[in-house]
C-alpha cells in the first residue's frame, strides 16, 4: 500500500516537473544544466531534451506551394563522449535552381552553468560550413562553441524547398529523446499517406485534424501531430540485420495532387497494383524489355542447343553474366538502358536483369520482372514507388518458378544474392497484371562435413576433411573463397583451428554453380589430445567444435535473422590409438527449440578401435522473435556445452 502511494507521489512530481519545463527557444533552465545523468538511462552520453519539427507549406504567386521544415532541438550533453552531438549536419538536395533546398534562420546557442549563473554563447560564423558533397547533395554543417560536460545546446533552423515530397520524420535517435512534438500541415491540394514504422519497438500516437486557412486564399490543411515523451535510444544488436529497420519514424508518401478546383489532377501511387503499373510503364522499365534487335543474332548462337525453358533461362543467365558486369548500383529502373549496358558491358541491377527478361521473352520463354526491396531498403510501410529499389527475373515452367539475378557471379537459379532476400517480390506480367511472389528460399541449404581422425601414437591427430555445400551455403562460400589464391584460402582455413597444418587442398566446382561446392583437404593437428595422468581427453569434433555462443545479450528487442533455413551436418570417424580403450563417452542428445524451429542432435557410438559421431544442427525457421530469444540463447548455449564434452580414453591392461 505504502509503495503505491509513493509511486503516485513520484509520478505526480514528475508531471509537475514536466509541466514546469519551458520548451520555448532560449528558455534553457538551470535544472537542465544541473542534471548530471539521464533519469531513465544513466549511461546516456547525451539526450535530446526537446525535439520539435514542424512541416508546413505556404503559397507564393511565383512558385506555388513551397515546403518549409522548421527544426528545433535542445540537447543535453552529459559527458565528453556526447560531444559529437554538438556537431550537426543537414543534408540538402541540389535540384534545379527553383527547387534548390536552402537552410535559413539558423540560430544556435550553447548554455553553460558558470558559478551558478547561466552563460550562453552564440554559434559564430566560424562554426558554419557548407560543402558540395556530390552532384546531388549539399551538406550544411555547424559545430557549437564552448561545449563542456553538462552543457545544453539548442538550435533552430528552417529548410525550404519547392519539392512536394516530405522527408521521413525521424522519431528515434541513438540517444534518448525526452519530449518530441511533431506537426505536419499539408494543403488539401496534396494528398499524403502517413505511416509509422511497424517494426519499431516504440509506437507514438498520431493525431490528425483539419484546419482552414484564409492566406492567401481559402483552403483546408490536413494536420498530423505527434506529442510524445521518453523515446528510448536505439541500440544495435548482432544478427538483427539493418538496425534502421527498427527505428521509429514517420513516413509520408505523396499519393495525389488536386488542381485549383480541387479536382483530382494527378495520382501518384496508392496501391501496389498501381505502383507496379507506374514502374512498368516507365520508359526505363517496360520499354526496355521490348528492345530485342541488338542482341538477336548473338543470342541465337548461344541458345541453339537449349530446348527446355529452364535450360534456356540458365543459358541466358550465364550469357548475360559474361557480357554485362554489375557496376554496384541497385535500381528498379534501367540506368544506361539495356542496349547500352549490353554494348558497354556494364550496368545497374535493372539493366542486367531486364536484359535477361527481354532475352528470355524474345525466345518465347515465360519470363517476368520481379520488383524487390533489398535488405538495406527495408520493408516498405505502404505502397510507394520507393518501396522497390531493385529488380530480378522470374521464369515460369508449368507450376515451377526459377528466380534469376544475373548481377552476381555465383548466384544461380533460385539462389539469389543476400541483398535480395527481403520481404516478398512483386512479379509484373504486363502493365495491368502483377502479383506477389515468395522469394525467400524454402529449400534448406546443407553443409555436410566428413571428418576422419586418426589419433597417432604421439597424440597428434591427422586425417581428412571433405565438405559438400549446397544452395546458399555454397553461394556464400564461393563468394568469399573462389577468387582468392589457394595459399590465401589455406591460411583462412587454418585460422582459429589451433595448432594445425592443412595440405592438399582441393576446391571442386569453385566456379561451376550448377553443382554443389566440394572442399577436400588433409590436416595434421598437434594439440588435439590432452594427456592428463595416464588418460587421454578430447572433444571429438576437434577444430569444428563451436567454442562460443554468439548470443550474449541477456534480452533482445529485435529478432535474430539467419536469413536462410539451413542444416549443418558432421560425420566424424575416429580411429583410436593402439593400446587405449574408451573409458567414457558423451551421452547422445537431441535438443529442440520451439516446435523444431531449430533442432540439434548429437549421436555417438563406439565399435572396437573406432568411434562414430553424427552431429547435426537444423535451423528450420531462420527468423527468431525477441520473445523466444531467451530460450533460443539457452538452446545455443547447450549446443556449445554438448560439443565441449570430452571423450576419455584409458590404457588397455597389459
Amino acid at each position, binding site marked *: 500500500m505504502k509503495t503505491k502511494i509513493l509511486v503516485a507521489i513520484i509520478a505526480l512530481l514528475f508531471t509537475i516537473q514536466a509541466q514546469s519545463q519551458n520548451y520555448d527557444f532560449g528558455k534553457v533552465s538551470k535544472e537542465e544544466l544541473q542534471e548530471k545523468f539521464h533519469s531513465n538511462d544513466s549511461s546516456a552520453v547525451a539526450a535530446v531534451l526537446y525535439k520539435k519539427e514542424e512541416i508546413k507549406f505556404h503559397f507564393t504567386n511565383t512558385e506555388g506551394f513551397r515546403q518549409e521544415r522548421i527544426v528545433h532541438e535542445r540537447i543535453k550533453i552529459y559527458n565528453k563522449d556526447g560531444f559529437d552531438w554538438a556537431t550537426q549536419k543537414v543534408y540538402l538536395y541540389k535540384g534545379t535552381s527553383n527547387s534548390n533546398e536552402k537552410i535559413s534562420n539558423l540560430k544556435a546557442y550553447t548554455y553553460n552553468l558558470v558559478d551558478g549563473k547561466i552563460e550562453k554563447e552564440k554559434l559564430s560564423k566560424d562554426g558554419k560550413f557548407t560543402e558540395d558533397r556530390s552532384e546531388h547533395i549539399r551538406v550544411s554543417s555547424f559545430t557549437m*562553441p564552448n*561545449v*563542456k560536460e553538462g552543457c545544453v545546446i539548442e538550435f533552430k533552423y528552417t529548410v525550404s524547398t519547392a519539392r512536394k515530397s516530405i522527408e521521413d520524420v525521424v522519431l528515434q535517435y541513438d540517444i534518448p529523446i525526452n519530449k518530441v512534438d511533431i506537426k505536419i500541415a499539408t494543403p488539401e491540394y496534396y494528398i499524403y499517406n502517413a505511416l509509422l514504422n511497424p517494426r519499431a519497438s516504440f509506437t507514438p500516437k498520431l493525431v490528425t485534424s483539419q484546419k482552414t486557412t484564409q492566406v492567401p486564399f481559402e483552403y483546408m490543411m490536413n494536420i498530423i501531430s505527434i506529442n510524445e515523451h521518453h523515446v528510448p535510444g536505439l541500440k544495435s544488436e548482432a544478427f538483427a540485420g539493418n538496425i534502421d529497420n527498427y527505428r521509429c519514424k514517420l513516413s509520408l508518401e505523396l499519393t495525389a495532387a488536386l488542381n485549383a478546383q480541387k479536382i483530382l489532377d494527378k495520382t501518384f501511387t496508392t496501391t501496389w497494383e498501381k505502383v507496379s503499373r507506374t514502374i512498368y510503364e516507365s520508359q526505363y522499365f517496360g520499354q526496355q524489355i521490348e528492345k530485342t534487335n541488338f542482341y538477336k543474332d548473338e543470342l541465337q548462337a548461344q541458345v541453339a542447343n537449349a530446348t527446355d525453358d529452364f535450360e534456356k533461362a540458365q543459358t541466358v543467365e550465364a550469357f548475360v553474366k559474361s557480357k554485362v*558486369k554489375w557496376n554496384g548500383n541497385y535500381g528498379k529502373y534501367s540506368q544506361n538502358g539495356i542496349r547500352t549496358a549490353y554494348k558497354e558491358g556494364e550496368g545497374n541491377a535493372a539493366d542486367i536483369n531486364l536484359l535477361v527478361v527481354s532475352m528470355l521473352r524474345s525466345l518465347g520463354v515465360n519470363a517476368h520482372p520481379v520488383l524487390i526491396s533489398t535488405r538495406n531498403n527495408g520493408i516498405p510501410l505502404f505502397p510507394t514507388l520507393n518501396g522497390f529499389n531493385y529488380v530480378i527475373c522470374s521464369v515460369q515452367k508449368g507450376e515451377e518458378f526459377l528466380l534469376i539475378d544475373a548481377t552476381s557471379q555465383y548466384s544461380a537459379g533460385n539462389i539469389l544474392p543476400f541483398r535480395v532476400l527481403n520481404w516478398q517480390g512483386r512479379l509484373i506480367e504486363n502493365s495491368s497484371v502483377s502479383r506477389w511472389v515468395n522469394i525467400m528460399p524454402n529449400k534448406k541449404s546443407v553443409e555436410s562435413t566428413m571428418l576422419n581422425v586418426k589419433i597417432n601414437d604421439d597424440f597428434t591427430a591427422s586425417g581428412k576433411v571433405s565438405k559438400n555445400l549446397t544452395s546458399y551455403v555454397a553461394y556464400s562460400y564461393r563468394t568469399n573463397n573462389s577468387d582468392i589464391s589457394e595459399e590465401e584460402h589455406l591460411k583462412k582455413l587454418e585460422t582459429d583451428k*589451433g*595448432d594445425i597444418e592443412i595440405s592438399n587442398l582441393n576446391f571442386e566446382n569453385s566456379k561451376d554453380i550448377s553443382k554443389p561446392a566440394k572442399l577436400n583437404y588433409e590436416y595434421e593437428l598437434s594439440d588435439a589430445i*590432452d594427456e592428463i595422468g595416464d588418460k587421454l*581427453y578430447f572433444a571429438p569434433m576437434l577444430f569444428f567444435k563451436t567454442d562460443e555462443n554468439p548470443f550474449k545479450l541477456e534480452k533482445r528487442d529485435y529478432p535474430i535473422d539467419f536469413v536462410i533455413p539451413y542444416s549443418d551436418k558432421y560425420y566424424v570417424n575416429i580411429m583410436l590409438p593402439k593400446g587405449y580403450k574408451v573409458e567414457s563417452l558423451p551421452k547422445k542428445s537431441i535438443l529442440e527449440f520451439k516446435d523444431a524451429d531449430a533442432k540439434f542432435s548429437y549421436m555417438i557410438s563406439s565399435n572396437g578401435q573406432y568411434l562414430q559421431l553424427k552431429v547435426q544442427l537444423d535451423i528450420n525457421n531462420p527468423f527468431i522473435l525477441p520473445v523466444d530469444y531467451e530460450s533460443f540463447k539457452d538452446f545455443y548455449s547447450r549446443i556449445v*556445452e554438448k560439443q565441449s564434452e*570430452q571423450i576419455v580414453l584409458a590404457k588397455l591392461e597389459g
Partner: protein
Amino acid sequence: MCILRKRFALSILLFFSSFFGFSQDKSAYNALSIPLELKSNANAIIRYENKVVEIVSKDEIKVVSKRVTTVLNKYGNRHINAVQFYDKHTKIEKMIAYIYDEFGNEIKKVKERDFKDVSAVSQISIYEDDRVKYLDYTPLNYPYTVEYNYEVIYKNTAFFPNWLPINDYYLSTQHSEFKIVNNASIELKTKKENFEFYPITEVSDNHFIASNIEGIKQESYTPGLNSIVPRFRVALKAFNMLGVEGINNNWSDFGKWMYDRLLTGTDNIPQTTINEVKQLTSGVDDKIERAKLVYKYMQDKTRYISIQVGIGGWKPMIAEEVDALGYSDCKGLSNYTKALLEAVNVPSYYTVIYGGRSIRHIDSEFSAIQGNHVILCIPDEEENIFLECTSQTNPFGFIAGFTDDRTALLVKPEGGEIVHTKIYSAEDNLQETTADIILNDTGGFEADVVVETTGFQYHLHEGLENETQRDQQLHYKEYWDNINNLSIEKIALENDKENIVYSEKVKLSSSSYASKSGNRLILQPNMFNKVSKIPTRYTDRKLDFKIDRSFKDTDEFIIQLPQSFQLEVMSEGKSIESKFGSYQFKLEAIGENQIKYTRTYTLLKGAYDKEEYKAFRDFRKQIVKYDKTKIVLVKT
C-alpha cells in the same frame, strides 16, 4: 584524434604515376605478355609508368605522368590509381584514361569530364576544402589494362612528388621511370630508401628506372610497408606553401620556418584567460604540477574537431579563437595549450608526429613536411613530457598506444629538433588479474575477478566506464569468450588518472564451465587470461617481423573445488624462456580442496629476422597449449 590532411598521404601515392607516351611498345597493353614472376604475387601490375616532374619555379611544379596498369582481379582495381585531388592551388591541365581488354584492344576512352568529381571530405572531418576526381570504371572481365595520363600544376611546393615504384602489397612493376627536370635551379634535397634491395637503375641525376619488381606478399607482424619498399624522397630547399616562402636545408631550418611562419602570432590569448590560469596555479611552485592543472583546464574547456582549412591544413587556428569557441583540431588545441602553459611560465614545444597504433617515425635524416598529428612537449630534466591535446579524458603525460616510442619534430623558436618519445617497457605495460573462484559440482562457478592495467594495457582497457551497462556486460562476455553461459553480476570500474591505473572489479558466474565426462569434471584453470590465437603459419616467410610493444601479464586464480569432488590429476606447471619473452604457470594444491593457479607472461618488443618467425610461432604455440592445460576432478 587528428590526422592532418589525409590527402597528402594519398596524393603521394598518386604522385607515383607516369608520363612519356612514346618509349613503351604496344605489348604493355597486352595482358598475355606479362612475365609469370610478376603475376604470381600480384593483383595488379604496373606495366609502364613514366612521371616527369618539372620545377618551374619555387612556387610552381608541373607533373606529367603516364601509367599503364594491368589488373588481374577485383583486389587490383584500386591500383589503376586514376585519382586526382585538387583545390584552388592545384590545377588539373589534363586527365584522360583508356581501357584495354586482355589482348590489348582499346575498349573505352574516358575523358576528364567523365571522371567522377566529389568532395574529398572524410567522415571524421566536419569540413575540408578539397575535391577529388577519379575514374569510376566497372571491369567487364579480368585481366584488363588501363592507361591513365595526367598533367597537373601545383602552386604549393612544400609537398614534392616522391617516387614509389611499388607502393602496396600484391602489386608488381614491370617498368617505372621517374625524372626531375629542374628549370628553376632550386637546390634539391633527395634521399634514396631501400634502393639496394630492388632492381633500380640510375640513368642520370634524379632520373631512375625500376624494372621487374616482383609483388610483395603481406605477412602478419610485418613492419610498416614504408620501411620495406623503395622510395625516392625529394624536397625543395626553397619552397612556397601557398604564399608563405620557406627554406629547408635541414630540420633546424625547416623547424625554424614552421615556427616563424606558421606559429608566430597565433598564440595570443585574452587577459581574462591568462588571469584564470594564473589564479588556478597560484602558489603552486612545481612546474609540472602547474602544467597538470593547466592541462586539465584545457581538457575541460575544449573539444576536438577536425577542420582542415588555412595554409594547406598546416597553420593552427589562432589561440584566441580556440579560447572563444572551445574547439579546434590537434594543431589548434596543442598551440592553445602551449599559450596557456606559457602564461604560467611552463615552456613547451609544438611537436609534429605520426599518430597511430602502429609506430611510424618522422624521418630524422630528411627534413620535409611529414607527420599527420601534433602534440605538445614539455621539456623536463629527467624525461620530456608529451601531452595529447585532442583528448578530453587522457591522463596528463600519457601517450601509450598512439604517439609512444617514435621520433618527432619539436618546433622550437631557434629551429627544429628531432626527439624520441617515451618508450613504455614491459614493466610499464602491466596487466594483473586476480580471481577467487568457487566451482560447483555441475561444472559452473562463481567468481570475483580484479583486472588492473597500466601503460599500453591501460590504453586498451580505459574508456569502458563510459559504456552503457549493457555494453559493459557484452564487453566482458567477449573478453572472456572462453567461458560459456557467462553472466555478469556486478561491475565496478575505477579510472585512476593520477597514477594511470585502470581497475576493474567484476563479479560473475557461469552455469557450465568445467566439462563433464562420466563421473569426472575437466577444468581449465586459466579461466580469465587465455591466449588462444596462434600467429599465421607461412611455409616460406619472406619478410622480417616486428613486435611493437612489450608487455607483462600476471595472473593469480584461487579455485575452491566442490565438496563432492577431489583432485585426480594436475600438472605442476611449465615455463618457457625465449628471446621473445617468457612464460610460466604453476598449479598448487592449497588448503582444503583449493587450487592456486599462477601465471606470468612477458612479451618483448623487437625487430626480428624472418628466419626467427618459426621460433616466435613455436613460443606462442606453446603458450596456447599451456593455457589450455586441464585438471581432472573425480567424484568422491
